[in-house]
C-alpha cells in the first residue's frame, strides 16, 4: 500500500523522467525522417557549453556572496588558478577537480582561520 509521501515521490520521479525522456524520444523520431534545421543544430551544440557555464556560475554564487570577509573569494580564485595550471600540465578532469577542491578547502582554512 502506497503512502501519500511515496506517491508524491513517485510522481516527482515520473515527471522528472518524462522531462528527460520525451525530448529524446521526439528528437530521435524526427531525426529518422529529416535532420533538424541548421539553426536548431547550432542552438543545440551551444547548449552544452552554455549549460556548463551557467552551472558553474550558479554553484559559485552562494560561495562568493557569503556575508563574511573576502576569504571565500580569494580561496575560489586560488583554487581556479591551481586548476588551470594542473589542467594545462596534466590534463584530464578528475585530478584538476580534486586538487581544486582541496586547494579551496586548504586556502579557506588558512585565510579564514580554523573553520
Amino acid at each position, binding site marked *: 500500500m502506497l503512502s501519500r509521501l511515496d506517491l508524491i515521490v513517485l510522481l516527482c520521479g515520473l515527471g522528472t523522467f518524462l522531462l528527460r525522456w520525451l525530448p529524446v524520444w521526439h528528437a530521435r523520431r524526427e531525426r529518422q525522417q529529416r535532420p533538424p534545421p541548421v539553426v536548431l543544430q547550432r542552438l*543545440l551544440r551551444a547548449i552544452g557549453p552554455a549549460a556548463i557555464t551557467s552551472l558553474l556560475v550558479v554553484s559559485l554564487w552562494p560561495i562568493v556572496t557569503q556575508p563574511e570577509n573576502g576569504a571565500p573569494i580569494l580561496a575560489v580564485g586560488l583554487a581556479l588558478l591551481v586548476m588551470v595550471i594542473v589542467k594545462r600540465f596534466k590534463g584530464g578532469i578528475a585530478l584538476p577537480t580534486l586538487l581544486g577542491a582541496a586547494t579551496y578547502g586548504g586556502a579557506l582554512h588558512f585565510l579564514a582561520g580554523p*573553520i
Partner: protein
Amino acid sequence: MRAVMQGLLASLSIMAGYIPIAISFGLAAIEAGLSPGLIMLVSVVVYAGASQFVLIALLASGAGLLSAVPTVLMMNARHLFYGPALLTQLRDSQRRLPSPLLAFGLTDEVFATALSKVQHIAPAAREPWFFGLQLGAYGAWLGGTLLGTRLGDTIATAPRFVEASMTFILPALFFALLLDVGMKQWRGTLLATTLATLALLLVLPSHHALALGMLAGALYSLPGGQRCSLGST
C-alpha cells in the same frame, strides 16, 4: 563492453562530486525526519540533486502533492534541452540504447561531462560509453545516499576544512569541464551566459536563473551572435 567500462572510468570525476553531496542529502533527509526507505526511494526515482533537497524540505513541512510535484518539475525543466543537445553528438553511434535508458540518468553533471568528453570516443561506441558514464554517476548517487542515511554521525565528525573542500567539488568539476570544452572557442557564448546568469541570480531563484541563463547563452550562438563550427563542441 569496453566502451561501457570506459564510460564508467570517465564517471570518476562525477562520482567524486556526487558522493559527498548524496551523503549530505541522506544526512539532511534523516534530520528532516524521513525514513531511510523513503530517502532511498527519492534518490532512486527522482535522481536530481538540488530538487531532491527541496523535495525533502517540502515533505518534512507537510506539503501536499499539488505543491511538491510542480515545484520539483519546475526546478528540473531545464533537463528538457539536454537530450536533444546530447543526441547531436550520438547520431553516428551504431549500438543504439533504448531511449528511456539514454534519458534516465541525464543529470546536469552527466550531461556536462558527456558533452566535454564524447568527442574523444569513437562515434560507433558513444552510446555504450554514455551508458557507462550514467551508470557510474547513478551508482555513486545511490551509494552516497545510503552512506548518508547509515553513517551520518561518523561522517559528521570529518574535519571542517574537508567539509569546505567538499562544498567546492561541484564548482571545481564544472570549471574543469569548461576548460575541457575550450573556453577560447566559445568565449562569446560563455560571456553571454555568465552575464545573463549573474543578472538573473539577482532577481530569480537559482534554478530559474540556471535555465534562463543557459538559454540566453545558447541563443547568442545563433546567427548574429557568435559563429561556431557545427563540427565541434
